[in-house]
């Protein structure tokens, strides 16, 4: 459907309802966030690798729900396809072939745990600083208004187009991230070729 039609529909709905309230209430956020955190904890505490993988899928799906709440449906859809549907199936595929009985008796806290702790603390610090500084980065300091149009008032259908414009550029122009995007895809191609050559001596 073309965006013009969509905005016409949206304005019709808004006029009829006296302003469209977002369907997703804060309760959705708290439920999804709690689900993500709880299943995230389960990922690292379960002894059984398959249970961990299942908990990881729940985490990924609830993060997809959070993206949906942020009015980024395309990112949510890709999250489900790539992570929950693609990568996790491969994870499970590998885990199923591993001898679970032996690996579940292994000690889970070995000598590299300080490294892990440091990395986790660094990531935590990054998140905290991002939240603290978020106000000044996201809002224009002179006016106090958000730098970007409020996603809640953009037509929902624009999300996919926005991503496409950023990656591939609008009519004739190069997009903001076209170069980075192409480099990343080249990198992935190299990785694919490397994997094929390493596993298949004779093609």
């Amino acid at each position, binding site marked *: 459907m*073309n965006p013009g039609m969509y905005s016409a529909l949206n304005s019709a*709905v808004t006029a009829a309802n006296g302003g469209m309230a977002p369907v997703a209430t804060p309760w959705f956020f708290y439920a999804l966030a709690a689900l993500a955190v709880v299943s995230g904890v389960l990922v690292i505490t379960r002894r059984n690798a398959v249970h961990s993988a299942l908990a990881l899928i729940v985490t990924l799906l609830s993060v997809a729900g959070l993206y949906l709440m942020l009015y980024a*449906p395309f990112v949510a859809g890709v999250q489900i396809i790539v992570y*929950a549907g693609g990568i996790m199936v*491969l994870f*499970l595929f590998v885990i*199923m072939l591993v001898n679970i009985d032996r690996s579940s008796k292994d000690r889970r806290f070995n000598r590299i745990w300080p490294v892990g702790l440091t990395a986790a603390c660094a990531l935590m610090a990054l998140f905290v600083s991002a939240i603290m500084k978020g106000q000044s980065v996201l809002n224009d300091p002179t006016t106090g208004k958000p730098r970007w149009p409020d996603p809640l008032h953009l037509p929902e*259908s624009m999300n*996919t187009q926005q991503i496409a414009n950023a990656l591939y550029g609008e009519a004739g122009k190069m997009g903001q991230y076209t170069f980075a995007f192409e480099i990343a895809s080249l990198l992935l191609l190299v990785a694919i070729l490397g994997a094929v050559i390493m596993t298949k001596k004779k093609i």
Partner: protein
Amino acid sequence: MPNFIMSYLDSRAALTPGSAGSQFWALIYVLIIFAGVSVAVICMNWLERKALAHFQVRLGPMRVGPHGLLQPIADAIKLMLKEDIIPAEADQFVFWVAPLIGLLAAFTVYTVIPFGPSQAVSDMNIGILFMLGVSSLGVLGIVVAGWASNSHYPLIGALRSSAQMVSYEVAMGLAVVSAILMTSLNTNGTDGTLSMIGIVQAQQQQHIWFIFKLFPLGFIAFAIFAIAMVAETNRAPFDLAEAESELTAGFHTEYSGLRWSLFMLAEYAAMIAVSSIAVTLWLGGWMRPFPNLLHAPAWEFIFSLFPGLTFAGLAAIAFIGTARMSSHSFFKIQRIGLAVFAALLGFIALLLLVIAVVGRSADAGVAAQVAAPFAARFRDGIDHVYWFVLKVAVFMYMFIWYRATWPRYRFDQLMKIGWKVMLPISLGVLILTAIVGMKFS
């Protein structure tokens, strides 16, 4: 009349309940779809057994009800009463949750399937992406079921099935992308769309089903999808995950009773779901044949009679069956039952025909009675759903036909077809569609 019923006539009712923000109608739609899919699975079960039997020159179920019509109910009762066994060495929790994953994935996709321009629970602007993503979660149920059974055959079945589904998803996704690309190939400058309803509307605006667009590119993409969707749903000839000659029953060997029936329900629901993707993307979704050529009011009226006439035909078949049944007193109850069934079908046919006729008078502005606008809305809705379901039904019959016709592939052949034939062709079709589509920009 209560507001939520009158809102059906509201001009906003041309939106899906999701975009109109109407929780009441959304709930009604969800319930209708859930019941409808369950009934469709039951019908499919009977039809598959009957059709397979006739393909193999057998009679199939004949004992429970006339021509075995009540066989699915007998099966369902048997499955519910059967002992539900969980193997001692199985992983209890995962074993319990695996069928539910498959079922949830299979039923969740129905929220975006467009049975009509407003006959969908919601019109997401990422509709097709959502469908592909959620239906790809179904493989998790199979993988996990095979692993949790803690037995060799299920594990091998699960490994085969996941490898197969992951490989065919690639070709399937590329075929879908080339269809999505076609939504933007128009002359009036509208953007492409991922919304399921938007895709059908794009075909309406471009006056062509995508299967015929840029011939033969649309057709090849459709053929790739039609093959890949059989592999995705683990149906013959790609049913290696449950190859009974090699693997007993594959990933659900250890399942019994109700849990096993959940797997079957999920499989058939997924079959209907992928068929509706194919119908939506390439076969014009809810549109009746030739909406642009034959759009005179007389043609509109003739096409609006189709649902009623279909039911009348089914009623006629049932009546003929009643008449041909042996008159021995042994068959007395069966004859009465079949006659009642035929009368029921005839009644539905009559109702649909009356709605079509009354709706026509509303179009002409003749009747001033309150029922006419309702009838017109109903008739439009029934028309859309009828054509959509008819197209999906053709695919469902093809699934049975494939199963009766082709021998099962060997696993290496399956992988070779997936990666060395389907993937390059679908990639080529995508690139060619993009190149040919340049002339539209």
